[in-house]
Each structure stands twice: as structure tokens, then as C-alpha cells.
């Protein structure tokens, strides 16, 4: 499954993997802004951004082709709009849609392939995201792995089960009900375990990482490269 693969990649070892999550998050968001603000009709900055991510992925010892292929999952949606734009006489905008959305998805997959999601959550908290939301995301992510496994069994079962459409519909509703019940009971179990270990109403955290020199250097270098790509990606091609 998608999140399992990205999670595995994110726990690899490389210079980029070892960098502070805040630096990586800031760099990728800057890249996304750079891509998003490219006016339709100019492609070099988008291509340069895409090339930057390829470079970073290679440095992080990631399978670049694997990432690029997974990012392509966004393309069917964009392709529809691209086609519509082309049909409406604005092919430039259509191509821009496809290119930008693809490059953006590629950048986000890269971020998730070098930073475990729970660490990204901690980075977001440092950037002042609400605490409740952060805790919630960490819990959802944690139990996603458990519950999606269970749901896969149910999905298979509901497909295997034959019968009239009405019967299969009711079976699906029943499956949702059972998933809900199991989830609720699991939540009660977690609360019991929390209170058994002295929970007092607040999740305490271990000490945060320090933002080091290598992290500063990485962020600075990334921002410079992103700026260059955005401003004059063209000169790379025109030469």
C-alpha cells in the first residue's frame, strides 16, 4: 500500500534523511509556492523544479523512477482538465495544469519519502499548528496501518460475496458498521491503556531535536536552488 511504501522509504539513511524535518518541510513548501506561481505559458521553471526533486531524490538514495511513477497518479485527474482546456481553446493552460500538478505531487512524495510523517507533524507543531490537530494526525496515521489492513480483508470479502445488488449493498453497510464498532472498541482499549500508565489529560513529549548547522546549510542551499529554478530556469534550456 502507498503509505506503507512511503513510510519505509522515509526511514532510510542519507544526508537528506538525517536533516531536521522543519528544514525539509520549509524547503518543499517553498518549492510548491515556486511551482504554483509560475504563469501559464512558461514551462522552464516547472521543469527545473521537477529536475531539482529528481536530483534531491537521487542524493537521498531513493528510487527516482518509483517516485516519479507514484506521482503520476495525480495525472488522470489533471488530464481531464487539461483536455477540457484544450477543447476550450486554451491548450497552454491545460498543459500548465498537468505539468504543475504533477511537479507538485512529485515534490510532496519526495518530502514524505525522506521524512516520516510523525516527524512532519512535530515540525508543523513548531510552525504553530494547533496541538489538538497535530495529536489527531499522529493518532490517525498510527492506526491507519492497523485499520486499513482490516478493511482490506473486508473489501475482499464484500467482493467475493455474491447475491443481489441490494444484498451486497446491505452487506457493505454492515461492513462499515462492524469497522465502526471495532474502531470504537479499540479506542476504548487505548484509553484504558493510557490511564493505566498514568495519563493525566495531556500528552507529554520528549525533548525536541536541535536545528543544526547542516540543517541551516541544507535549507539555505535548497532555497537558493529553488529561487534559481523559479527565476531563470529558462537559461538552462536556452544555452
Amino acid at each position, binding site marked *: 500500500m502507498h503509505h506503507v511504501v*512511503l513510510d519505509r522509504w522515509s526511514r532510510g539513511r542519507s544526508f537528506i534523511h538525517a536533516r531536521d524535518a522543519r528544514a525539509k518541510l520549509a524547503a518543499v513548501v517553498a518549492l510548491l509556492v515556486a*511551482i*504554483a506561481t509560475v504563469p501559464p505559458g512558461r514551462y522552464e521553471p516547472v521543469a527545473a523544479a521537477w529536475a531539482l526533486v529528481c536530483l534531491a531524490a537521487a542524493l537521498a538514495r531513493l528510487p527516482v523512477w518509483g517516485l516519479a511513477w507514484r506521482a503520476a497518479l495525480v495525472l488522470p485527474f489533471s488530464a481531464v482538465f487539461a483536455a477540457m482546456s484544450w477543447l476550450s481553446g486554451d491548450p497552454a493552460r491545460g498543459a500548465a*495544469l498537468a505539468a504543475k500538478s504533477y511537479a507538485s505531487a512529485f515534490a510532496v512524495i519526495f518530502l514524505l519519502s525522506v521524512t516520516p510523517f510523525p516527524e512532519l507533524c512535530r515540525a508543523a507543531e513548531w510552525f504553530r499548528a*494547533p496541538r489538538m490537530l497535530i495529536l489527531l494526525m499522529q493518532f490517525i496515521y498510527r492506526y491507519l496501518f492497523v*485499520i486499513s489492513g482490516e478493511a482490506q480483508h473486508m473489501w475482499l470479502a464484500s467482493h467475493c460475496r455474491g447475491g443481489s445488488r441490494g444484498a451486497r449493498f446491505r452487506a457493505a453497510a454492515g461492513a462499515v458498521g462492524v469497522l*465502526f464498532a471495532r474502531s470504537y472498541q479499540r479506542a476504548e482499549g487505548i484509553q484504558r491503556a493510557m490511564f493505566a500508565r498514568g495519563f493525566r489529560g495531556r500528552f507529554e513529549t520528549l525533548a525536541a531535536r536541535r536545528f543544526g548547522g547542516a540543517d541551516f546549510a541544507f535549507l539555505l542551499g535548497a532555497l537558493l536552488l529553488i529561487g534559481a529554478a523559479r527565476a531563470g530556469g529558462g537559461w538552462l534550456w536556452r544555452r
Partner: protein
Amino acid sequence: MHIPDGFLATPVWLALDVGAAPAVGLLARRARQDFDESRIPLLGVMGAFVFAAQMVNFPVAPGASGHLVGSALLAYTLGPAAASLVMTAILVIQAFVFQDGGVLALGANIFNMAIAGVLAAHLPYRLLGGRRMGVFLGGMLSVLVGAFLALGQLLLSGIPMKPELLALSAGLFFVNAAAEGVITVAALGAIRGIRPGWVQEISPPGKRELWLFGGAAVALAVFGVLIASPLPDGLERFLEEAGVAARAKALITTPFGDYEAAFFRAGWLRKAAAGLAGLALISACGWATGRWLARRRRA
């Protein structure tokens, strides 16, 4: 409908990000007041449940299967404020982990689905006292409102859409919305069947609340009609009367010249009134039905 990055015009995604951030902060603070952090495991597990439930296949038509979106279901089991927060968390995870929806577009997607969508689910449910029709309408509206808001944002960003395609999209939205309504009713029934206490108890609304919600529904309907009417004329006249027209036009057309607002352009949008008028019609019907039912109950 999750909007990816690269689709929205910079002023649009920026404005929605800037607007959604404090809204989410408020939601989180409200959640904190309502319950302490010990409720987080329940909300978290419910969020994971939504992901799993979205994978279940519902045969809704010959050869077609639907899937639950879940905002309405969350609203009816956790209450609207908690549901909004959980949906927000789900959307963030979908954007980052699954690249379903953009990161910069999160403000838009959160507003469309976690805030407006949950509210649209809650109102009919509240208005109709938790009855099945309320559940169906709530499920339907939660998807419909989110989809039309997204469509509006895309149009505002200058995405060109032929009127036929627009009408087709609107039609698809209605089909998906109806499916969500039916699936939500079935799923909620199944949950109630296992333990009724898991579904939020809704007392029938009092008179003051009816007026409040009725007013909101009317406002929605009026706004919907305004949008649906021959758009350039209708909206421009409205803006002129509010004294904003010239300034608004300037803001939208410069300095982001490339993103000249689509609705100040061709008249093809008039033809697309059908879908949007439908939304207004549904709201008006729901409101009228609710009032009629409430009057009957009191008699």
C-alpha cells in the same frame, strides 16, 4: 472533490489558506474546551476508520459502485465541531501522504469539505431532528456543497470549462451526492443497530433555532440563485450596489493579469445555471420540508 496544487490561482489559494488557518485554530480551541486530550484516541481511531470505510464498495447502480466520503457520518457520530477537526486532519494526511489534493490547496479543500461540508451535513440533520430524511439530505448536501465550492474556486482561477462540461460535472456531483446520502443512511443505520448510543441524539429544534436555520437556508438559496442567474449581470449588479464592483474588478484583473476572472468573461456561464440552481432548489426544499414537519410535530 480534492483540488490538487497547480490548479488554483495564487490569490485564490492564498486567500483560502489565510482564511482557513484561524478557522482551524478556532475549531481546535473549541475542541479543547469541549473535551481534554484523552478523547484524542477516539477521534484518531475514527479518523482512521473513515479511511478504511472509504475503501468499502457499495453497489449503487448496475456496474457502478460508490464509496463513502464520510463527513456526514462523522458529524452524526462525533458532533459537528469534532467532525470538522477530524476531517481537517484527514485532509492533511490525504494531501501529504496520499497526494490526494494539494498542500497549498489545503485551505480550499479544508474550507470546502471539513468546514462547509460538515456544516451542510449538520443543518438538515439538526433541522429534521435526526430523522432518516435529514441523514440523507445531510449526506447529499455535504458532498454537493463541497463539490460546488470547489468548482467555483476553479472557475474563479480561470479554468476554462465549456457549458456542456459544466453541466455534466454538475450532473455527476448530484449523482455522487445522492449516493453519499443513501450510503450514509445505510451505514448510520448499521451503526445504530450495533449500539444506538454511538449516534448523536438530536432533540427536535426549538422555534428560535428553526428561524435561525430557516434563515440560513434561505440565505443559501438566495445566494445560490444569485450565482445561478445570468451571472455577469447578476453578480456585477450586486457588486455595484455594494459599491465594490470597480475595485473588485481591478483587484482580480491586475496585477495577476493571467488570472482574469472567468465570470467577467463570456456569457456561456448563463447556460450553466442549471446545476447551481438545483442546489438552491434543494436547500429551499429541505428548509420548507423541515418547517412543515416541525409544524406538524407541534400540532
